[in-house]
């Protein structure tokens, strides 16, 4: 069974035995951390209200985030998560609040985890334009068809960062365009082949 380290438990200790409303406020801070990163201003306000050091608040919020992350990384079921929370020191009522936090923010946690995976730039959009070059300084009479492609790629953003886009201007001719389509169609065909589908089923 998964258990939290002593250090992790230590960060969460200030939350044990606190009223449900206060824990819900901390859950909101944890969700905000997941989506936008740490917010020291909010932590300072909370620290003043509770008359504790701001560091205690920050570590408690990070402890909740870490709890959600560990739970998703290990794909804990509701009952496993319940056991983990109760054995860590939270009471029954707090466990219900944390379970709700865990269930309703799975997508956000998964997204945050994805950003740490090594990856190339990701496809975002493709726009095209068809031109025929009819003259240039070096050759007055010509008819050269060309498809200009604007390929937009995006960088998977880390938490706190905005998505960065990279626009690439490329060009190709009708023959190569036909070749590209043919080769990429092969990829799509292969994705729905028996072999690919069988492997996908195995890994799921």
């Amino acid at each position, binding site marked *: 069974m998964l258990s939290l380290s002593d250090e992790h438990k230590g960060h969460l200790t200030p939350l044990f035995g606190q009223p449900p409303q206060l824990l819900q406020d901390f859950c909101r801070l944890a969700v905000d951390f997941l989506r936008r990163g740490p917010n020291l201003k909010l932590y300072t306000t909370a620290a003043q209200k509770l008359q504790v050091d701001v560091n205690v608040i920050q570590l408690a919020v990070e402890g909740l985030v870490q709890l959600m992350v560990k739970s*998703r*990384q*290990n*794909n804990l079921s509701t009952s496993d998560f319940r056991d983990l929370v109760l054995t860590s020191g939270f009471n029954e009522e707090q466990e219900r609040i944390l379970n709700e936090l865990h269930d309703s923010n799975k997508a956000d946690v*998964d997204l945050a*985890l*994805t950003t*740490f*995976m*090594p*990856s*190339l*730039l*990701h*496809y975002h959009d*493709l*726009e*095209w334009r*068809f031109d025929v*070059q009819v003259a*240039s*300084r*070096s*050759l*007055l009479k*010509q008819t*050269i*068809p*060309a*498809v*200009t*492609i604007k*390929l937009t*790629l995006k960088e998977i953003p880390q938490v706190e960062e905005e998505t960065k886009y990279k626009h*690439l*201007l*490329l*060009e*190709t*001719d*009708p023959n*190569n*365009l*036909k*070749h*590209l*389509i043919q*080769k*990429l*169609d*092969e*990829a*799509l065909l*292969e*994705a729905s082949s028996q072999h*690919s589908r069988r*492997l*996908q089923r195995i*890994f*799921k």
Partner: protein
Amino acid sequence: MEPKLSTEIMTGLKRMGNSTLVSDEVFVKSLQCGMTTITQPDFTSANLSSISSGSSKGDVVKEAHCALLSLFVESARLDLTLDSLTVFLETKANWPQTRCKMLADAYAACVSKVQACLSNISVHPPHIVDVQWSLNHNTKSSSNKQTTSSFVSVQFETEGLPEGQEDKLVKFECTLAELQDMVSKLKEALRQVEHIAHI
């Protein structure tokens, strides 16, 4: 329309048409050397020195060679007909008919290659010439032990990047749905190209 050549080039052409300065044998060799130089980008006119060394007027041969290349390029740029070229050489460079005929034949043989080279001299984005792909299924990662997702790695191979830019490959990843989206957009582009080609 006739080629607009500088005074120096015109002087070289006039000398090339003069059999006293450039013998028939040197003329033929110069013509062959000129054609090779202009149709083979890596050719360095190595045999030009051997042509000029046999002649007492080496500088004239070199000048004529330069004029010949300029004439080929300018005529191809203007898409000059053989008749126009012949008339130009006869009237403006005082070439005899036999030499005009030989040059016109040489021009006819290499004009399409010269024009193909000239058409590439322009401002163009990198040209996609090939694509590589691989289909992947992500099963686990250091940050997420439970992840399962399919994705496609795509690599466009390009030509014609500005000098100094070595990276000819455009690499990216996409999901199958995104690949489908990209392919359908490219197919739409191809449909439009084929539609216009049939007009």
